[in-house]
């Protein structure tokens, strides 16, 4: 029975969350809705883990929807990279949902709780769909499913500024997705196929028509809007700052990461490394933007008064490291990118979760309100500082591993000055993490409304587990490093 089901894991990974969403709307009761969402997340996590182990052992899986053989039928294709990112996404769901029980109660009106869980499931289905599908247009539809649910999730924040943040994200996200559709429209006109693998083989034999360049530009800019690559990141800080805490944590760890996967997929496997990096010099543009992302948003983060916005700007800065890895277009660079994708998801997800507990107790995420947190919420503050160390890249935390890979990859490419840039921008991370340390440990708690102790256990435990995982994968990177290496090789075609 399970063997029979296991064949259909690629499609069930999307269908199960997609079907849970209407089920939750029918159930209506918050507890039942939560239970259904939780079970779905655990199932998705199990399926993703099983798919990853299958892919690592037996190579890529191709699943023909409705038994219509690709390239005419729609194909779901699982290789190491998407199974790995799917594991991160569904794993984040497993961490965030237990946290939602209490975390969301304080931030979302109680009659909207079941809708919140339904949207969470739609978002999960969309993100997993982007990962498993092997069809360019399908990818756009899943992108819009996840984006539309994300806009609503952000608008559910208590502050009215959440509405404006959501509206701005809707505009920029839709422009990004539409540019992506223009790109695949051009590719479809050229190749006559929407199947990504088929498209790649046909593009390789076509020489270099100018239309390919246009398609490359449209897709790069469209997806970069979703990634929040440096000058296109303007939607992100407000969206993360005013969304409910659980949503910030979930999005920071998953949404941008999935888009980064899409970019890598197009650069490395569809257009091909030669076309993107050797002929078109896209790598130089990406490198320049990555460097700008590593420094400018980090400086902006230092000046923030609100801790959630600070973390959001830090996310933009950290995304720069990932795209820097991509721009090196070597197996080592891609390994660094995938490793940082994983490590940053753990770190930033964990930090947003910890912060959510603090916001619940203090009523705000502004640094003034969080003063003296080291005394009133010692465990959470300590966990937050550990997460901060991982953002900086102190040895013993997950962040160090990915920066180590990145510096090695830069050295391997003969770009020693990039290694210096990575170290320099880490110093900026020290400054913005220090802002929290200074406020939490060297200032007295606000007298009018001091926090009343640690966050509830159901919020604290998932947060601590994520920060713990961050340390675990910092001390023992053999699994995550190995997976990142396999994923990079599967994309760049080396070592097969």
């Amino acid at each position, binding site marked *: 029975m399970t063997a029979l089901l296991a064949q259909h894991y690629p499609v069930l990974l999307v269908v199960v969350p997609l079907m849970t969403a209407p089920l939750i709307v029918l159930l209506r009761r918050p507890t039942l809705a939560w239970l259904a969402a939780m079970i779905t997340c655990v199932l998705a996590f199990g399926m993703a883990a099983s798919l990853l182990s299958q892919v690592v052992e037996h190579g890529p899986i191709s699943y023909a929807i409705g038994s219509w053989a690709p390239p005419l039928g729609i194909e779901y294709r699982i290789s190491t990279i998407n199974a790995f990112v799917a594991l991160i996404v569904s794993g984040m769901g497993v961490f965030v949902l237990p946290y939602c029980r209490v975390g969301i109660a304080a931030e979302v009106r109680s009659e909207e709780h079941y809708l919140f869980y339904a949207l969470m499931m739609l978002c999960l289905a969309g993100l997993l769909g982007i990962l498993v599908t092997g069809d360019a247009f399908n990818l756009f539809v899943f992108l819009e499913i996840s984006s539309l649910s994300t806009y609503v999730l952000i608008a559910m924040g208590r502050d009215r500024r959440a*509405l404006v943040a959501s509206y701005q994200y*809707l505009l920029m996200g839709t422009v990004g997705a*539409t540019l992506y559709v223009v790109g695949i*429209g051009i590719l479809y006109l050229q190749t006559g196929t929407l199947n990504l693998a088929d498209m790649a083989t046909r593009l390789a034999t076509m020489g270099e028509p100018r239309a390919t360049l246009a398609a490359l530009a449209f897709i790069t800019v469209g997806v970069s809007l979703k990634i929040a690559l440096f000058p296109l990141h303007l939607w992100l800080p407000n969206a993360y700052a005013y969304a409910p805490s659980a949503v910030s944590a979930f999005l920071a760890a998953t949404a941008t990461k999935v888009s980064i996967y899409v970019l890598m997929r197009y650069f490395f496997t569809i257009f091909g490394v030669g076309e993107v990096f050797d002929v078109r010099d896209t790598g130089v543009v990406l490198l320049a933007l990555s460097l700008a992302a590593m420094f400018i948003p980090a400086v902006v983060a230092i000046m923030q008064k609100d801790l959630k916005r600070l973390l959001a700007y830090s996310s933009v800065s950290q995304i720069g490291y990932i795209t820097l890895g991509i721009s090196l277009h070597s197996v080592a660079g891609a390994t660094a990118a995938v490793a940082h994708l994983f490590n940053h998801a753990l770190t930033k997800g964990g930090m947003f979760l910890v912060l959510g507990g603090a916001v619940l107790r203090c009523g705000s995420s502004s640094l003034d309100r969080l003063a003296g947190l080291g005394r009133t919420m010692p465990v959470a503050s300590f966990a937050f500082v550990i997460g901060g160390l991982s953002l900086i890249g102190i040895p013993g935390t997950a962040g160090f591993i990915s920066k180590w890979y990145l510096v090695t990859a830069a050295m391997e490419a003969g770009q020693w000055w990039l290694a210096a840039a990575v170290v320099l921008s880490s110093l900026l991370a020290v400054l913005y993490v220090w802002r929290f340390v200074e406020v939490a440990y060297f200032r007295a708690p606000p007298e009018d409304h001091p926090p009343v102790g640690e966050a509830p256990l159901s919020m604290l435990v998932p947060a601590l587990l994520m920060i713990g995982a961050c340390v675990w994968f910092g001390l023992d990177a053999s699994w995550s490093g190995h997976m990142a290496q396999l994923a990079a090789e599967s994309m760049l075609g080396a070592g097969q």
Partner: protein
Amino acid sequence: MSIASHYSYFVTVLLLMVGLFVVIARSNLIKKLIGLGLFQTAVYLLYIAPGKLIGGTAPIVDDAFKVYSNPLPHVLILTAIVVGVATLALGLALVVRIKEAYGTIDEEEVLKVDADDESATDR
């Protein structure tokens, strides 16, 4: 291969640019959404126009017909239209909520209200 025979592409590019301009340049939130709608509609044309063959019929298998239009772009755009409608509906719903919360649908006034709030809490 004359420019006139490719006019649908020029219309597409024009609509794309007009749509994007409206999104960027107007501060009325509803006008922005109209621009967004125009932007998305341009893409429909980009897909549909090349799918049509002059003298081609709908893809019905019959000996009488030899030339068929490509049905796939139409199907894709049907999906894209649904996505566009959903986006527009959500955008308009957000504008209604913004109007309730701020009392205005002008982006600059909304940002001004927020800036005033922020300087009030700083004092």
